[in-house]
């Protein structure tokens, strides 16, 4: 199987791609103006913020950046397209010929281009309603080579891309939309408008099985465009077009060629590389590190700032615990205190985290401290403080001081240690244990 993707990524900019309208309106048709409505006489003006984000993506995907970037009109007729053309990029795309790497797999990236979203179509009974809030929203389209060979590779590719985008400040978890090109043989099938990573993988799986079945039955795979039905978890043929679509691209004469060479953008984080290096240096589990940090920059920051000062295992454990109890918002100082507790073998419960957050001294029982271990620690203490055994031999009351010290050290109540302390003292005094 060969899979190629055309991925549409919504950019988190404050205004639309070619006008000043906001991007977060909720009521339909409230964030609109003559420009995004395509009114006669209006002209586009390019949003610099969108260029900055898009350049970050192109750079992260190792693309060659076209320093002089330009736009084209892609002409087609549909009610959601107010100008009857979409402003997009072709020859002068921001990025060209890059790649994305994960594990040992490398997927070629053909193009990274900026373009505008059309309006949203809402079907309500016999009516087709249009919401122009979405018209002119900034999108980046990433076009890959057909290098993905299996569902596992597709999953890996999408997860890695999502992580890279996440670290650039773009969350595509549910928003990712893509067209899939799937072929098991010569003819390829295009599956249009699939939303979400899970659905993309399922659509690919369905297509692979469907096409393989056809081949097995000796039938030809028809080169066609299909859609994905989420409920049926199946691809379905879309309405046939009578002729091949021709877009009649035209260089966009309202936008000049833009020089992007002086624009600075966010540098990428490749989580595979980062976690691999950390695992090597601090002898930690690479997979665990990756799982924790792939879509969580806060955790990566914590690891980076505390590594070397604490055991990596303890840092990882602390992150796992705060994630488990939904305490990711804990302050840096409280988090660091938690690691100290872990190093002292304190079991981190929700209660412990809350106590630490409140700034209280944590007095918690050692859950794992066995009788034998407690005895070993008492012996160790007495060996460090031989004078105390001599005191005890002279005056049994000296035991109280020892009980107090041990309970403080082990975070245990004096009642819970007194019996053992007395037993050890007696054995030691009797020479059964040599101090």
């Amino acid at each position, binding site marked *: 199987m060969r899979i190629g993707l055309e991925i549409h990524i919504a950019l988190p900019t404050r205004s639309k791609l070619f006008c000043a309208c906001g991007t977060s309106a909720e009521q339909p048709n409230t964030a609109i103006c003559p420009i995004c409505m395509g009114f*006669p*006489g*209006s002209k586009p003006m390019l949003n610099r913020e969108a260029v900055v984000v898009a350049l970050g993506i192109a750079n992260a995907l190792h693309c060659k950046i076209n320093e002089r970037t330009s736009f084209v009109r892609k*002409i087609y*007729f549909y009610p959601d397209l107010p*100008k*009857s053309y979409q402003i997009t990029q072709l020859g002068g795309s921001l990025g060209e010929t890059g790649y994305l790497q994960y594990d040992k797999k490398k997927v070629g990236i053909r193009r990274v281009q900026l373009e505008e979203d059309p309006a949203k179509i809402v079907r309500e009974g016999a009516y087709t309603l249009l919401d122009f809030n979405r018209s002119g929203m900034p999108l980046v389209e990433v076009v890959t080579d057909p290098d993905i060979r299996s569902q596992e590779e597709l999953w890996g590719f999408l997860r890695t891309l999502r992580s890279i985008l996440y670290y650039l400040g773009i969350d595509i978890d549910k928003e990712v939309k893509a067209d899939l090109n799937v072929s098991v043989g010569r003819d390829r099938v295009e599956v249009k408008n699939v939303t979400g990573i899970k659905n993309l993988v399922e659509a690919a799986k369905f297509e692979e099985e469907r096409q393989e079945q056809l081949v097995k039955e000796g039938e030809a795979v028809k080169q066609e465009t299909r859609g994905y039905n989420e409920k049926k978890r199946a691809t379905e043929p879309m309405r046939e077009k009578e002729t091949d679509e021709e877009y*009649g691209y035209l260089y966009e004469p*309202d936008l000049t060629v833009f020089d992007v060479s002086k624009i600075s953008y966010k540098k990428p984080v490749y989580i595979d590389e980062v976690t691999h290096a950390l695992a090597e240096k601090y002898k930690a589990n690479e997979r665990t590190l990756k799982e924790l940090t792939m879509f969580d920059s806060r955790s990566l920051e914590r690891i980076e700032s505390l590594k070397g000062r604490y055991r990596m295992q303890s840092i990882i454990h602390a992150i796992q615990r705060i994630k488990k109890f939904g305490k990711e918002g804990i302050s840096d100082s409280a988090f660091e205190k938690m690691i100290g507790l872990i190093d002292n073998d304190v079991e981190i419960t929700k209660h412990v985290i809350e106590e630490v957050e409140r700034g209280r001294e944590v007095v918690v029982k050692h859950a794992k401290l066995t009788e034998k271990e407690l005895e070993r620690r008492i012996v160790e203490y007495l060996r460090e403080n031989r004078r105390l055994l001599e005191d005890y031999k002279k005056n049994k009351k000296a035991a109280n001081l020892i009980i107090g010290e041990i309970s403080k050290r082990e975070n245990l109540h004096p009642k819970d240690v007194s019996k053992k302390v007395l037993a050890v003292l007696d054995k030691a005094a009797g020479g059964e244990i040599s101090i």
Partner: protein
Amino acid sequence: MTSSIREFASKKKPGDYYQRLAAEVEELNKEYHAFTTINASQKGKAGAGVPFSSKANICVKGFETTAGSKMLRGYVPPFNATVIERMLASGEYSFLGETNMDEFGFGTFGLNTEVPARNAFDKAYVAGGSSGGAAAATALLKYHVALAESTGGSIATPAALNGVVGFTPTYGAVSRYGLIDYANSLDKIGVISRSAADARTVFDLVRGADSYDTTCVVGKIRDEKKERFYVVKELLEAAEAPVKRPFEKLVSKLESMGRKVERISLGILAEAIEPYYIIAMAEASTNLAKYNGYKYGLQYGELYKRYDEFFTSARENFGTEAKRRIILGTFIRGESVRDRYYTKALVLRRMLIESMQKVLEKGFLLSPTIPILTPKISDASRLTPVQNYAMDLYTIPPNLGGFPHISFPYDYVNGMPVGAQLVAAQANDYSLLGFVDEWEKGFAYRFAGNVGDI
């Protein structure tokens, strides 16, 4: 020539001047059809300054703006074009109305619209196009300036045919925001007026950077005087004899004014019509794609139809020339032919600009504005499309190259005015206005009317 703007300011106007002017213009319009919209109620910032009109493809908030097309009938823009905004903000101009034009600017004689404007000198003759209404209005009104627009000669040609000054600035000197697009890489807003001084005053008011138009980037305008005038042999050859004769007299007169007129060969200028129409039609066909009969302008109404069907039926309301340019422009952009036509036209355009630049560094280019005398409406309407396009021979080179040019009246033949066109290097706009200022000192323009005189 005196500036009508300055003269108007110095006059004491009767209190109801604007209402009376609007009423007179309404009457006049029944004969000349120069206006598509008249600000009769004088709403907006009226009653203060010099009356001005804008071509019907420049958006004016609150006034029907149709670009001469049935497809935009009833369209009232919710915003002002930048040039309108600047005119009104100055407080020195009063909006009089919008002027007639060929549908979307598609025409040389002003005939490609439902009710064409008439020539101000003789109603049997064409007003010219596409800014025919603007030129006729300027020729008829005593105190008035017109904002017009040129893609391939739409300011110079009608100005010449109505005996007024038509100034087309360097591409990108004036914001196009709010201009209803014909061909975006060619469209320029300019001025039609009764003197170079008026053109300069309006130009200085409306020009300059605008964040709403990315292509409006020409900042500094130069005034490099040129003593040398070049006449291109290959262009002049194509003029008909009744145009050549007065033109030769103009050449002698210029020489007597101390200018050096040189005949040069620059064949590429005679090859500009084809690349121009290819680029203009390719761009126009995309600009016209948005008119579909339900968002603004014409309300086609039959919303029950499937979109393809609805779209196709609604678009039957375009005029013949608009349909021709949509079809040709769409064809030109087709994958199988685009390199043969569109890409080649872009290369030719580049070559033309380079060869013109070389000449314009040393002097002006001089030619008649149009190769024929003003035709009668009945004669012009019999021309084939290709014959029509050939009339743009002189105006196309500066328009295709984005060079500033000006058409000025220099003679009268059979009682009708004839115009000459002067072209300068990019951003050297003031030198053109400066020359016409000088020309006006030795040549008195005859105007067709003096409506609104005080």
